[in-house]
């Protein structure tokens, strides 16, 4: 078998540059999807995770149900469910626009971001909850004794410490979200994975393409890990683990 390792530098049949451009476009879509889903996951996950630490029964039960729902259904199934149901839930002009006028790739992107964001938010919620609940109880006592309100206690004391604690698990959640984003190709998004088929159609060199895509994924995740190491270093406190 002959391999054509220079494939990515060959021009595409559509006159839009070389295949490396396609790979790049795929990477941009993958990264945009990961970032958008991350923002959704982080915001919702934080809210649900905080709710999980409240004494209020209703809020707590709601948070538990939310987490169980989004964590226990396979991502692929969730992606399809959003893909099928979400457009039906819209109505009138918005529906027509979403289904007919919107660029199909943007259409898929929005649905994938919602699915991936909610799926990941359940996991982040659990981490935020753990981060808060494993802080020494004395911190709550101290904040309360000083007269801080619940809101102020979370805002100024509990959350800054909880987030610091969970930077490492958040990092692995970030790399997960990048890997999981590949499922979006099943609902038609032309991300890195989507580009595999596209390039293969006109080149028939699947091994080389897979190598290129794998390498790109590794590059993205390696960059994320490097950046997060820096974040961890910057936010680490002296004697952080010694309760004081």
């Amino acid at each position: 078998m002959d391999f054509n390792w220079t494939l990515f530098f060959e021009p595409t049949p559509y006159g839009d540059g070389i295949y490396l451009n396609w790979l790049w476009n795929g990477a941009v879509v993958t990264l945009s999807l990961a970032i958008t889903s991350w923002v959704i996951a982080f915001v919702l996950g934080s809210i649900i995770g905080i709710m999980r630490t409240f004494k209020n029964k209703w809020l707590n039960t709601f948070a538990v149900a939310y987490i169980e729902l989004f964590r226990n259904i396979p991502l692929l199934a969730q992606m399809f469910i959003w893909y099928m149901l979400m457009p039906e839930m819209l109505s009138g002009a918005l529906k027509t626009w979403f289904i007919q006028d919107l660029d199909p790739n943007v259409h898929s992107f929005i649905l994938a971001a919602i699915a991936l964001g909610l799926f990941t938010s359940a996991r982040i919620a659990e981490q935020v909850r753990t981060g808060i609940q494993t802080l020494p109880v004395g911190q709550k006592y101290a904040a309360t004794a000083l007269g801080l309100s619940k809101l102020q206690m979370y805002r100024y004391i509990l959350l800054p410490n909880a987030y610091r604690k969970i930077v490492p698990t958040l990092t692995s959640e970030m790399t997960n979200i990048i890997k999981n984003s590949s499922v979006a190709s099943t609902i038609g998004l032309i991300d890195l994975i989507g580009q595999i088929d596209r390039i293969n159609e006109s080149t028939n060199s699947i091994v080389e393409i897979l190598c290129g895509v794998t390498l790109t994924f590794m590059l993205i995740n390696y960059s994320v890990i490097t950046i997060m190491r820096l974040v961890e270093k910057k936010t680490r406190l002296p004697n952080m683990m010694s309760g004081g």
Partner: protein
Amino acid sequence: MITLKNISKWYGRFQVLKDCTTQVEKGEVVVVCGPSGSGKSTLIKTVNGLEPVQKGKIFIGDTEITSNSTNLARLRSRVGMVFQHFELFPHLTILKNLTLAQIKVLGRSDDEAKEKALSLLERVGLSAHANKLPGQLSGGQQQRVAIARALCMDPVVMLFDEPTSALDPEMVNEVLDVMVELAYEGMTMMVVTHEMGFARKVANRVIFMDKGEIIEDTSKEQFFSDPQTDRAKDFLAKIIH
């Protein structure tokens, strides 16, 4: 200043506090002691409502802590509390630890809060450390900061829960010295401690607890020279060799 009237508290079916009644007058220093698990920490935490009680009434001055209509946050801010494990906020500098509640609870301006904080740090001898993080200080220094943090709120009462028992022996005195000085200045204090030297020096009264009950509540002189109950005698014999 502090009045506890027939306080009872349960954790599930376990009764931690049994009908506790006592009071602390303005300017008085009351030491609370007793064996481990006797409910000392729980008792002192009920004073500012950190631990709710199922029965009884608690007053600070004329304000009833146990009443629903009391603005607890506001009241708590004037009751200073110092914990066994310091509980400084690890992500904030010493200065920010001292200014946060002044600004957020008392509504002081940044400058006002900072000035107050620096003067109290000076007082506990830690001005040089204002911009460090708690983790960079020794235990004794952290506890002095914690005392200063409480004093920043201009408290009318100070509560201490075993403030020296998590410290290395050589750091105990630097913290006790600050507390003694406070007592001499007339601060109303309720102190859970086994430091009988401190009790002898500044306490007006000693409360002895066992199994959730206040079983002695007497003057310091009487407590040390002529304890009434066998349990207190045993306790004293064990603690003073």
